[in-house]
Structures are given as C-alpha cells and as structure tokens.
C-alpha cells in the first residue's frame, strides 16, 4: 500500500479522466454528484469500465460491464494483473522508482489466468483482458470504489489488489489518475481523521507509539492507555462479555450493524447504554439515558469529504426544544466524570486544539476555510494551500509496497438450504437507517417499502410474481420484502436495501468481519426466498 486512506485525486479531476474504472460502487445512487462528474467525463470521451454484480445505471454508458459474481473480486483483479504482467504492460520505470516487492505480485497472480477467472467470476475472459489493457495503457486512468470492495471478509485483500493495479501501472500522483475510495457518509473521512479509532489518535498517530502517547498525555494532562482498543465489529460481538457499558452517538446500531439478532442479544447483556441522537430509533429500546442532539443545520463545525476537503457546517436554525449541539453535550459529560474539558467558546477552538496536535491538518482553521473555501489535507502550515492530488512525488511513506493476495471465498456461500446470494446496499432515495429520509413525503412516495431484486429465472423457479411480498430467510433471521423482477441482477443473486426498520435487512446479514478492519460482510450472505409468512 502507499499510505493514507483517502481519495488520492479530487472530485473535480474526474471530468478530465481518460478512463474510469468503477468497481463496487453504484455511484449514481450512493454518490450522485460524483456520478455527474463521471457522466461528464464519458460525454467528453472517457472510457468507462464498471465491475459490479448488478447492471447498475452506469453500465448503460459503460464500454465494458464486468458482471462479477459477488465476493470474487480477488479473482477478477488478480486476473487483470496477470494480463498486464503477461503482456508486459506494466510501468517498469514507476515500479523501479517508487515501489518494492513487485516480485510478490508476479508470483501471486501467475495462476490467475483470465480463463480460470471466467469460471470463478462469471466475467468473460476477453472482457478481463480488454479491461486490463485499457486500464494499463491509458494515461489518466482512475479507480473508484466504495463499500462493494470493502464490505467483505476479504475487503482488505480487495483493496490490496486494487493498489497492486495502481502501482504496477504507475497510475498515481497524476491528475485524474489514482485510487479513490468514495466515502459513504458525510464525515467518514473526518471521523477517522479526528481519531475516532481504536488504534489512532487524531491525524493517524498510533496509540501504541510511545512518542504519540507522550504527546497526547502532555496535551490532555492525563495518563493514557498504550493498549489498542477494540474495533466496532469486536465491540459489537463483545457486548455483554468484555464490553459492559456503551456510549453511542449518531448511529442506530440495531438497524445498521450486521446480524441484528446478535446485536439485540448483546444490548440486552450490557449494564449501561447512553445514546445521543436526533430521532428515536431502534437502539433507543435498550438505552438507559438518551441525549437529544442538534442536527447539522443547528450547529457549527466541519465535515471532511471523500477528497480530504475540510468544509464548514454552519448553524442556520436553533435545535428543537431542549436539544443541544453534540459538542456541548460531550463536554458536559466529560466534565461530569471529573475530566477538565476546556471551556471551548465554539467548535473553532476545538478544531484549533486538534490541529495543534495533528501534522496533517496543522494549517487548517475555521477562519481560513471561511476565507478561502474548503481546504484539502495534507495542509501542514498556515501558508500551505492544501493538497489537490496526493502522491505527486511518489507514495507518501517512502516506497509503495505490493502485496501478493490469494483468493479466499466469502464466509458464507450459497448452499442447497440457502441457494441465493444476497448483497445489500443504499438506494438513491434513502440514506442508511433512513431516520431522516423516510420523514420526507416525496422520498417515501418514491420508495416506501422494502424490496428484493431478483432475476426472472429465479422468480419463475420460486413461483413469485413481480410486486409479491415474500419472506427472505438467512441462517440469522427472516424479514419480508416485495419482489422486483429485474435482469439487472445475476441469476442466483438477489439485492436488497437496508433502509427499512420494519424489514431490517441486517437481520439477515453476516457479521463475520474482515481480519484487519473488522468491516462486516454486508455484501455476501446466503438466503432463501419463500412465500410470505408473517
């Protein structure tokens, strides 16, 4: 890999790309405005390669659609690497100057021929060859991916495979040419940057690094734990075991985390739960104390978007009733347990404290953003203009390392009892647990109930009609959904959104996590579909 987890390019660079390789991202629905930039690039003549199990909107304007079987990404990407190496299309000068361990990849992909990949992935070998050639030989070629890559037990492997393609073709550190994870939520990037992580302080300084620990101990005036914490996936599984008390801000864990039944059992097993949110939600049934918080229109602060752009959130209206901005509540709670949180006058002072401890954001302040507009990190001092394209002078941390990766099947595969493979995701008209979007008449008019996309072949075999309500059952739970017969999914695969609290898709999903990140396998679990039975 090559350093920071963030888009290496910027959103406005997309329009100037000559090739877009979109994998595991239904961009028009999950990131509509980035999709507009992609449409513009294609109008300007860019090639578009889409790898996705579904015929998503972008496939209508794509040059190649590789309709991959869910969970076989490593096969597909290794086969592309195989083609590039076999045909000598790699950028040897870049590899020699900026990378190490290329030999690992050469060895790892040797057996991943396009023909064998076709058997596993369902993608024609010729499409794999064409995609690999186009990607390798186009100068301004960018990769765009999101949770279709990461929400697997082999999510980290998928990312390594993409990084291998980027490094072997030298598609890094140039305009419109890089590796671009599109962040699913408004401030995923910013939450990571701020150190809401079991292993990192703000600005990706490791809690296990004694120097970093000493720095934050001096700044915060207390001794700190040198032990890495549990990640979210571990904490969810440890509820009622090693985790006995929980503070949850701004997430409905019952609706959003995989394997709802296990989450509910865990919440029943803990001693104390504090929840802070703007709406009642499913998790509130387990809360001992609930704090009413302010929404984005009711407070000041910054969000950091997918292209590392730190932008202001401004207060437009007052919170309702006694609700208060989250930052005020957090300060009060910390003080109530005896920790002397400073008397921040407003969030600009909180940001200033963080920036003073964070090399990547040291030059960013509310005042500067108000003056200049959004600033992209790294931004190391007040005169630094921010960074539009990462790695302009080679990978951030010395040389980028290749990682040889080998295919591992998803944790749960189709079986006679559960013959269909379910993937879940977001639609254009709703947002995650949908506490906000389902309270909007037009959005609810467009999509008001849970649905399951199913290929006509499967629907015929199961004897279910378009619009019929069915039961969907996995090893973990059962929910209802209305059938949408469509050829946009592969036979044997079904797809469902996770927005509907009355039919929670995460009752079905598998909480098996990626070994490195703990990210749950939302994209692959085995289900069966039956006539509806309450």
């Amino acid at each position, binding site marked *: 890999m090559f350093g920071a987890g963030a888009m290496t390019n910027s959103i406005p660079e997309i329009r100037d790309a000559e090739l877009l390789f979109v994998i595991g991202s239904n961009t028009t629905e999950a*990131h*509509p*405005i*980035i999709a*507009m930039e992609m449409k513009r690039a294609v109008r300007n003549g860019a090639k578009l390669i889409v790898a996705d199990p579904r015929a998503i909107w972008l496939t209508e304007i794509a040059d190649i659609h590789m309709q991959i079987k869910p969970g076989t990404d490593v096969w597909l990407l290794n086969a592309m690497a195989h083609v590039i190496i076999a045909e000598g299309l790699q950028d040897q000068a870049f590899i020699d100057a900026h990378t190490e361990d290329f030999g690992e990849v050469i060895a790892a992909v040797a057996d991943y021929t396009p023909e064998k990949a076709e058997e596993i992935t369902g993608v024609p070998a010729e499409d794999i060859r064409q995609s690999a050639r186009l990607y390798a030989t186009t100068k301004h070629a960018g990769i765009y991916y999101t949770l279709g890559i990461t929400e697997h037990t082999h999510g980290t492997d998928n990312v390594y495979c993409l990084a291998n393609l980027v490094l072997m073709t030298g598609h890094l550190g140039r305009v419109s040419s890089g590796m671009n994870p*599109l*962040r*699913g*939520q*408004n401030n995923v990037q910013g939450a990571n940057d*701020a150190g809401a992580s*079991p292993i990192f302080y703000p600005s990706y300084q490791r*809690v296990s690094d004694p120097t970093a620990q000493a720095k934050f101990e001096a700044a915060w005036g207390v001794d700190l734990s040198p032990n890495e*914490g*549990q990640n*979210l996936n571990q*904490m969810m599984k440890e509820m009622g075991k090693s985790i*006995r*008390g929980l*503070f949850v*801000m*701004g997430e409905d864990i019952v609706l959003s985390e995989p394997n709802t039944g296990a989450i509910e059992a865990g919440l029943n097993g803990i001693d*104390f739960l504090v929840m802070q949110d703007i*709406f009642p939600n499913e998790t509130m049934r387990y*809360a*001992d*104390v*609930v*704090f*009413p918080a302010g929404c*984005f229109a*009711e*407070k*000041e*602060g910054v*969000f950091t*978007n997918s*292209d590392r*752009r730190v*932008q*202001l959130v401004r207060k*437009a*209206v*007052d919170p309702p009733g006694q*609700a208060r901005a989250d930052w005020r509540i*957090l300060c*009060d*709670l910390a003080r*109530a347990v*005896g*920790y002397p*949180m400073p008397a921040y006058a407003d*969030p600009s002072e909180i940001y200033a*404290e963080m920036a003073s401890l964070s090399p990547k954001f040291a030059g960013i302040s509310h005042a500067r953003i108000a003056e200049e507009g959004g600033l992209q990190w790294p931004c190391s001092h007040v005169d630094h203009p921010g960074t539009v394209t990462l790695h302009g002078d080679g990978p951030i941390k010395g040389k980028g390392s290749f990682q040889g990766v080998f295919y591992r099947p998803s944790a749960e595969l189709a079986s006679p009892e559960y013959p269909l493979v379910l993937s879940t995701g977001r639609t254009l*008209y709703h*947002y995650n647990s949908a506490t906000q979007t389902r309270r909007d*008449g*037009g*959005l609810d008019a467009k999509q008001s109930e849970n649905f399951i996309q199913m290929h006509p072949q499967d629907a015929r075999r199961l004897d279910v009609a378009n619009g019929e309500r069915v039961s969907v059952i996995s090893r973990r739970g059962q929910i209802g959904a209305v059938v949408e017969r469509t050829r946009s999914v592969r036979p044997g695969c079904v797809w469902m959104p996770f927005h509907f609290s009355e039919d929670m898709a995460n009752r079905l999903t598998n909480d098996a*996590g990626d070994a490195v990140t703990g990210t749950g396998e939302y994209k692959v679990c085995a289900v069966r579909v039956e006539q509806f039975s309450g």
Partner: protein
Amino acid sequence: MSDFEIMIDGQTVGASDGETVLTAAIRAGVSIPTLCHDPRLDPAAACRTCLVEVSGSGRLQPACAWKAQADMTVVTENPRIKRHRAVLLSMYLADHALDDEGLPVERPNGNQLREMVIKEGHAFDLVPVAAPRGNREDKNPYVQFNPDACILCARCTRYCDEVEAVSAISLAGRGSATTISTVAERSLLDTSCELCGGCIDVCPTGAMFEGKAPVHAPEAIEKVRSTCNFCGVGCQLDLNVLDGKVIKVTAPPPGTTVNDGNLCVKGRFAYDFVHHDDRLTTPLIRRDDGELHPCSWDEAISAAAAGLLAVKKNHGADALGFISSARCTVEENYLVQKMSRAAFGTNNCHQCAAT
C-alpha cells in the same frame, strides 16, 4: 494560459482555442446579458439576449456560442445592440405572466427576465400571445412547472440531458404552444427522473419550482452556506431560512464549490427532518418502571456519568465502548475520542461507519 488575444469593448482579452466570446468576456469582467447560458451546458444560443457585434459578421451573433478567434473585435454595448434587446424583451413580455406594473412576475427563486426588463427596458407593447403552453398534473411533491413563467430557454431539459443525463423532460409541442413535458405527460415519479431538482436550479424565470417550499419574496430569505449531511461528496449548499425554519435548500453557483452547482434529491429536498415532530427534544432517562421518561439535562448528564463510571469501577475502563459518528462533525468526533481516552481511560472508540 491564452492562445491569442481578442478585443472586447476596447479591452484586450486573452482567449484560448475553442473558447466562446462569452467565456472570454466573463473572465475579463465584461457583463453580457444571458438567460439560456449555463457553464455546465453546451451553448444553445436560444434566448438571443447575448447577441453582440463581432468583426467579420454583418449580423449580430450570440456571444454564448460564437467562438473567439485571433484578432477578433467584439462590441457588447451600442445603440444597435440595445435596440435589438429592447425589441427582443418586448416579445418575451408578450408571452409571460406580468404583474400590475407590467413586469414579469417575481418568483421565490428570482426572475432574471424581470431583472433584465428593469435594466434594459423594452421597445413596445405587443398583443399577448394567445396560445397558452400546456401543463400536466404531477403528483410528485418536489418538482413542479408553471408554464406561464417559461421562456423556452431549455436550460432545464438540457441540464436533464447533459448533466444529470436521465432525459426525463423535454420540449414538447410546436410553435408558441411549445412546453416542457415528459413522455406521455407522466408524473416525474413514473419517468427516468431522479428528482435531483437541477431543472429548478437552472431555470432563470422560476417556471420550474419546488412544490413543497412555501411561496415567499426572494429577499425574505436568509441563505446560510453549509455542507450537506448525507453522503461523502461534501456538496456545499445554502440553507434557505425563513422565520427560524429551513424552508428550502439551494445550490451555490456553478464553478464555485466542489459540487459545481449540482445537488441530488437528498441534498436538495430531504430537509423536512430538521423540523419534524418526531425529533428528540428532551433528555430521557429509564426509571424503575422500565420506561424512558423526560428529565432535566442535569439529571441526564449525572445519570450517564454515574452509569458509565460504575461500569469502569466494576469491570475496568476497557469494559466501556464509545461509538462515535460519521454523521457528526470533526470536532465532535475529536471530543468523543478525547473523552473516551482522557476522561474514561480506554481506546475502545470507533466511528460508526467502521463496519
């Protein structure tokens, strides 16, 4: 970087190959009136308000579509051009809803035709056009169309084709009865429309408007620039505030922010949640009856502190977990991890989008 120079109103201006007279003029700070122009769209030269004199052409030419060429001389303001605009605006007035003063009716998002008539005047009063543009019922609550305010500049249909690329609306009919419509006059809900509302945003005269926003005078609004709270694109948007409520969301001008003037259905229309009756408005505490009851902030904070400290006392700091939120601000995430680490003593802190 310019490839050559042209002269606009006596001013030397650099221009590049393929560039139009209008974009060169905008860069030089020369103002040319337009109604159908949008920097995101291919030039249509439909509204004819940007006609200027260019050397080498006897006729006035549309600045928005006419390509700049080396040594070209452009005049944007003289009696001939003013006469052209006044006659043109007279024709627009004959086919537009007018107020008591004979000016194009003001609209909540403004009416650029009204502003132009006030600035440029008009030549004469023509007999009003007697062929009303057709309209259709549309049950969607977001995007509505008022044919009386339409000037057929086709910014909406071109945006729908070229930027959003779903081609849900198009010009329909012939002659002065031409209107904006959908296939078989369907509701937008039953078309390829994705309800992005870009058609509302690009409409210069308020013919495309937001069905659910209250009618108001444009100047009654306070616009607060902020960042969208849905996906990770980070679109900049203006919260339109009236009487302490967000009543509408609009996009900043194209070319000024990361979203280039665009918004999606959620960013533009999904703001009803802000003032929804279901919002949590008071702290709640679970009492001996097993139910959540309203309580004071002091009691809620004390109870939360006591409950979390009791877990720490009985099971150690690492028996606590802190789940932060990718929906909240950077500062709030900073405070959650600082509280987790400094106030409670554990690194069991992770943001919600981690799984």
